[in-house]
């Protein structure tokens, strides 16, 4: 099979307590929605990492059609971006190698990073750079929730960054649509001779309902 590893990395620190129910509802709906969207469901494996003071693989990479429900996030503790990126790198390395060993072709992994964007560890850039330097460096799309720091969200993203609009009750539908658009773009062929070496060439809609796109170039 051709498989796109898809990770949701979610902030469940104490500062997210006001938004954690919304985020859980969003993850629940996202699971329901994308597991029935064949564009995503047939090609992707989904993993969930929660992070606060530490990071945990709440759901190891799985075929969503084999999963009844996702574990819930629980808000507590600090906001260690460094632990999140470190665990994410380990998970990606392990998962991609396992998929390839099983005979699958693997697309470059995609990460949805959702946070209120206030890291409490000052040295998170090192594990972040190690993640980007790894063999299976993922595409990272960062979503700022609640009172997220726009500049931090933009810094984490390698491809797109979005800030949640005030009053957006449930971003699940928006995330699903974005995930479908992103998946289609990733698997579509691109002309190689002209675009090789130019890095990302994904074409996705910049408009995610309920979110405002954050330009990475200006920050």
């Amino acid at each position: 099979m051709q498989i796109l590893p898809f990770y949701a990395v979610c902030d469940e620190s104490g500062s997210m307590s006001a938004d954690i129910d919304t985020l859980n509802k969003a993850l629940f709906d996202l699971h329901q929605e994308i597991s029935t969207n064949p564009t995503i469901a047939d090609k992707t494996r989904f993993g969930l990492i929660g992070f606060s003071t530490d990071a945990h693989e709440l759901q190891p990479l799985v075929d969503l059609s084999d999963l009844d429900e996702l574990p819930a996030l629980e808000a507590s503790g600090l906001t260690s971006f460094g632990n999140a990126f470190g665990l994410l790198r380990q998970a990606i390395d392990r998962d991609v190698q396992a998929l390839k060993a099983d005979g699958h072709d693997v697309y470059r992994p995609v990460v949805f990073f959702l946070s209120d964007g206030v890291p409490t560890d000052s040295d998170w850039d090192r594990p972040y750079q190690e993640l980007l330097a790894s063999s299976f460096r993922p595409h990272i799309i960062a979503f700022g929730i609640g009172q997220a720091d726009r500049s931090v969200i933009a810094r984490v993203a390698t491809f797109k960054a979005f800030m949640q609009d005030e009053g957006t009750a449930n971003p699940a539908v928006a995330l699903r649509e974005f995930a479908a658009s992103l998946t289609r773009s990733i698997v579509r062929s691109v002309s190689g001779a002209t675009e090789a070496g130019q890095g990302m060439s994904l074409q996705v809609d910049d408009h995610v309902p309920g979110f405002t796109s954050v330009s990475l170039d200006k920050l």
Partner: protein
Amino acid sequence: MNAYDNQVPGGGRVPEPGPEHVPSRKGDPIDLAASVYEHGWGPAPAPAPAQGEAPAEEARVVVSGPVVPEGFLPRPIGPGPSAVREPWSADGPTVAESVTAPVAGPGPVVRPPSFREPGPLTHVGRKAPTYPAEPTDIPAISGGDLFGALLPDTVVDGGRFGPVTVRAASVRGDGHRYAAECRQDTALVVRTGELLLVAVADGVGSQSHSHHGSHGIVRLLTRQVARKAETLLAFLRSGAETDFAGLMNRLVAAAAGDLAQEAERAGLPPKSYSTTLRALLVPADPAVPFRGFVSVGDGGLLRLREGGWQNLEAAEGGEDGALISTRTDCLPEAYEHARARLITDTRPGDLLVLCTDGLALPLLKEAELRTWLGERWGREAPGLAEFLWQTQVRVRSYDDDRSVVCLWEAAP
């Protein structure tokens, strides 16, 4: 054993399509389906026996035996002891039951279930794709692109030429069907004099008008090849590979130039027409064993010989390091040169499979698919409907358009 005698473990039959009896327009499977539906009946009844003549044996259900012509599996044509339940319609009425069912009185029209011929699409692998197996939304005219909206979901073609029997199909992938987008692939079968040109092309998915590119490049290449058919034929006869490769590169470049001009005349950048291309040239003379091959970009050329698959493009895969790369060379601009060569070791009985990456990738990666298709294609060439059904075998995660041309070399 013919293509319809495909036994499965347990003694059942693989649900293959039966022989096509309903008149249809060549290359238009949508009309074919409509025709079958209008008749409410797939195969037409067998001709009535002449007076005093015993009913033909073929009019009964006979699944084997010397009276059944090769490749022919008669279906029951009416009530009586011969009407049996086919294994692929176990949930529905027998043919005889549905034909003789009483007509309901006034009320909503309830249509009987279809006969499921040539049978529901099947899949290989642990799970079937999540996508619907058949097309749903019909592509609308988008941005004034009448050409894209007019492209049929599926085309099928075929014929005989010199030593080869040709079957070709181009089928819109699940992904494009689900998004109500048009087919970006195309397949071509054309003859110019004593030369057969078959080709497939795959419009690059990231480009807006790549379906114009794929359909355009095979048309424009045909024009170029037709102008030099005699020369190409001479190179094939003499096995002059260097000359062949040089000329094919010039012809592909000329076709690419024409394609770029078409894009510009349409007010679009040539890049928006980006497409791959794969073509084979076959001389009519069965004494000439050489086949010409040319390609730009990803896709596949495979050979099925004595039940075993061979990848004739082993060094040209699309892997970029450890992960899948979707980058590909493409016409009209993003390529350096076409890869052109002769296939010099063709044997009678070989099958050459020329395909876009929609089929090449699963065929190269999925052993179960190679086995499935190998069992079916390692025989006499199937009928068009059967070939189309086989081409559409489903494999989860492979949802791209598929285009394929198969050349069955005459058996010894």
